[in-house]
């Protein structure tokens, strides 16, 4: 379990101060895949670097399995870090080391002299790069580099894995492959993942919990399903809407959100008949979220009794929002 208590970070440079992270409290349970999402400058990268002590907080404490990492001596901190893997947006492999040597680095640092070769082969198989062990990073694609970085990060069987914009430099297809790999690894090893990104798309594919950050604050914290169903903060709403494109000039546009329980077609036709309204479907989309599905329906509603129609829809378990582009 990772506990962040009243954690903040202020950068001071030549009498100028910049608050990257306002004091926050956060608990990350074992086995979680926690997504931390927000626009750039929200404080996500600072947050993740405070967890493994790459940065020292201005105030507050970081507890990893009840151990305050700020009180650790350098050697103890280094041993602790072997329990916390980390991967990055730009992979950070060493150009002059082969794939094999890059992964070996991890085992050398933890003084794992025994059966190195077997472990590396096992890791390469896990990430699907058995045939690349003698290749150098420049010969690899972005996705392959991230696979090597993942193998390096999990080589010492860490309990936690920090992912700093791990898929942000990759194309959509590769992003999906990497997310799938992380999900697989999580299932096999039970590693706790903290996944930082500005792409809400990635969050919905692997995370079970989400923290939304804005300007150094945690503005919303919920399960993934609830974040997509009932986004409450403006930033969350705008992030969720990244996935949908509706003509801005249209008026009377409503957003209907429903889970798979709602049988939307008959509900809609009932609403049209009962309240004498017109419903034009502008856009429909089903989001696969972890093991759930959420339907999004963007409609233009016109007619006499829209107010009651909305109440009726809401009574059937459909979330109805007036659609405003942010």
């Amino acid at each position, binding site marked *: 379990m990772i506990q962040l208590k009243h954690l903040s970070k202020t950068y001071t440079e030549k009498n100028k101060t910049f608050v990257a992270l306002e004091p926050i409290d956060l608990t990350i349970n074992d086995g979680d895949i926690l997504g931390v999402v927000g626009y750039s400058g929200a404080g996500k990268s600072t947050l993740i*670097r405070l967890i*493994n002590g*790459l940065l*020292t907080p201005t105030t507050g404490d970081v507890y990893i399995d009840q151990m305050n990492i700020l009180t650790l001596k350098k*050697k103890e*901190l*280094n*041993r*602790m*870090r*072997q329990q*916390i*893997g*980390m991967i*990055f947006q*730009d992979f*950070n492999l*060493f*150009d*002059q*080391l*082969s794939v094999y040597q890059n992964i070996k*680095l*991890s085992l*050398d*640092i*933890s003084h794992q002299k025994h059966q190195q070769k077997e472990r590396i082969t096992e890791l390469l198989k896990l990430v699907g790069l058995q045939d690349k062990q003698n290749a*150098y*990073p*420049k010969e690899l694609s972005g996705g392959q580099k991230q696979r090597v*970085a993942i193998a*390096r*990060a999990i080589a010492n069987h860490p309990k936690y894995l*920090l992912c700093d914009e791990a898929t942000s430099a990759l194309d959509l297809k590769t992003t999906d492959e990497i997310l799938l790999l992380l999900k697989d690894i999580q299932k096999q090893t039970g590693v706790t993942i903290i996944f930082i990104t500005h792409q809400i798309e990635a969050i919905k594919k692997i995370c079970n919990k989400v923290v939304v950050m804005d300007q150094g604050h945690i503005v919303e914290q919920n399960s993934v399903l609830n974040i997509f169903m009932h986004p409450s903060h403006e930033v969350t709403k705008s992030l969720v809407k990244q996935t949908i494109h509706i003509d801005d000039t249209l008026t009377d546009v409503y957003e209907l959100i429903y889970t798979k329980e709602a049988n939307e077609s008959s509900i809609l036709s009932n609403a049209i008949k009962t309240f004498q309204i017109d419903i034009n479907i502008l856009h429909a989309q089903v989001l696969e979220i972890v093991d759930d599905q959420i339907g999004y329906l963007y409609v233009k509603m016109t007619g006499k009794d829209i107010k009651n129609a909305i109440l009726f829809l809401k009574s059937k378990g459909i979330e109805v929002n007036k659609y405003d582009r942010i």
Partner: protein
Amino acid sequence: MTAYDWQLIQTGLFETLYMILISAIFISVFGTLIGFLLYFTNEQNTSKKYLHVINQIISAFVNIFRSIPFVILIVIMIPVTLILTDGQMLGANGALPPLIVSATPFYARMVYNALLNVPIGRNEALRSLGASNLKIAHVMLIETLPQLISSFTVTLITLIGFISAANAIGGGGLSDQAVIFLIHNGSTKQLAGYMSVMIILFIVFFIQILSDFIVKKINHS
């Protein structure tokens, strides 16, 4: 060209190679050490204030000794050189202290720059793996090795230029010999002079070509 001229060229060549070799050893060891010291004491790597102060002090020294023109450095260093060489200012050994003091900061700066050119994320990756400073230094050395070899070659070739300057004020070596030969205007000694210059050029080209070959061979980036 007489057999005696050949002998003079040989002696000069031997002295020059000796000066290159000895200073190369000192410069590579101390330059690399100082470069890494600068790297590990900078603000990127440590938040300890006293280390930043050390960084600034070393930085100042490096910049000062890098800026002093070599010929002037030789003169300034005369007292030190006399102590180090038991009063023997002339000859190859007398040239070594100013050569080393002048070129080491030059190379140290290049080592430091090479280290700074490695994306900061790779340093973070090492630290996130729990690497000690010694291990970080080891991996960074491997990562920057091609760059370090190129930089060292530039330093060596500059050094050969410095050696000529040192020769001019009695440092011995091949350039000294070349100057003496070439001064004999119109005599057969001129040929020996040109021969000496050719050998110096050959040394420079050889170092450059060898270095390019090695860098190409080991560089994977």
